[in-house]
């Protein structure tokens, strides 16, 4: 069981990292959205993601035995210790790029949380119960935008196609099952992420069909984040994310 606990902590931190980093990227739009309505909508979604990250880090810190807090996990690790997938750290390009990135991630997390509702780990199942409602809205909101942008003007369609071309190669990493987490699947704690691919694909197909986008064939899938190998822009993101805790350790307000 002790071994299982270490694996669960590592899995929780991995999911939390995805949410913290994607939430942080999304929060960069605050005050810069193309219209006022989206200036509220995007930070709303960012707060959902950061809230989910907090719950996951808190649970991980508890299971670990309390040597570290949620803040230590979120703010005081080095880049190689973050296990988020590369997709979520990709820098913002334009609105279409951001909506697509959120959509890809939400289309993965919805079935993940749905299958986690029956987790044998009660505290984890409780987090899933709250998160599944939030992520369902993210799919709907970002999906509807992609349909309108992809099937919109010449410019919006071109930007959306460019986003697909850039981001699609990063999506396969979502379905990579860390061998260290296998026993968590066997004991019914977490779902097998490699089995979520078909569910994800059908969500993407449905929206892409309406958006008149085609799903590209990916020759060279890009990955590394799950093993701590990140992109160059991740360092800049962390510098901003961690600045306050590093400069004023333990600061409270």
């Amino acid at each position, binding site marked *: 069981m002790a071994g299982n606990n270490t694996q669960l902590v590592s899995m929780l931190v991995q999911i939390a990292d995805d949410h913290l980093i994607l939430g942080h990227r999304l929060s960069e739009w605050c005050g810069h959205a193309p219209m006022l309505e989206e200036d*509220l*909508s995007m930070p709303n979604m960012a707060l959902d993601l950061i809230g989910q990250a907090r719950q996951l880090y808190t649970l991980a810190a508890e299971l670990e035995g309390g040597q570290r807090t949620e803040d230590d996990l979120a703010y005081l690790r080095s880049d190689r210790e973050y296990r988020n997938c590369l997709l979520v750290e990709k820098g913002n390009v334009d609105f279409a790029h951001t909506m697509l990135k959120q959509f890809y991630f939400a289309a993965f997390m919805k079935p993940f949380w749905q299958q986690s509702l029956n987790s044998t780990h009660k505290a984890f199942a409780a987090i899933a119960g709250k998160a599944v409602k939030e992520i369902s809205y993210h799919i*709907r909101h970002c999906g509807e935008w992609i349909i309108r942008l992809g099937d919109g003007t010449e410019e919006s369609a071109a930007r959306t196609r460019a986003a697909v071309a850039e981001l699609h190669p990063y999506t396969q990493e979502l379905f990579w099952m860390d061998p260290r987490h296998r026993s968590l699947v066997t004991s019914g704690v977490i779902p097998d992420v490699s089995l979520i691919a078909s569910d994800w694909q059908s969500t993407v197909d449905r929206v892409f069909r309406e958006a008149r986008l085609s799903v590209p064939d990916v020759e060279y899938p890009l990955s590394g984040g799950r093993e701590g190998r990140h992109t160059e822009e991740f360092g800049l993101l962390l510098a901003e994310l961690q600045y306050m805790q590093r400069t004023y350790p333990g600061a409270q307000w």
Partner: protein
Amino acid sequence: MSSEPMIPLWEVFIRPRNGLHHKHVGSLHAADSEMAVQAARDVYTRREEGNSVWVVRAEDIVASDPSRSEENFDPAADKVYRHPSFYDIPDEVGHM
């Protein structure tokens, strides 16, 4: 944004709780009805303001003419007998 005039204006109505009626809370811009409902949810229900949203295209609302407000509304001013305030209500009835 310069493209904003092309995006229609919608009036937003929120129902705070079951049993109450929808109340006008403000307006927003959205390209179509689905996006208007989503924007209304995002802009006006962040603090648990309600559990149902209506959106109506602002141009579909027909309003009374302000220049006719005297002929429309002043005649009601001296008809107090239209208020049900002249009945004795037994205490047992409670709130009506």
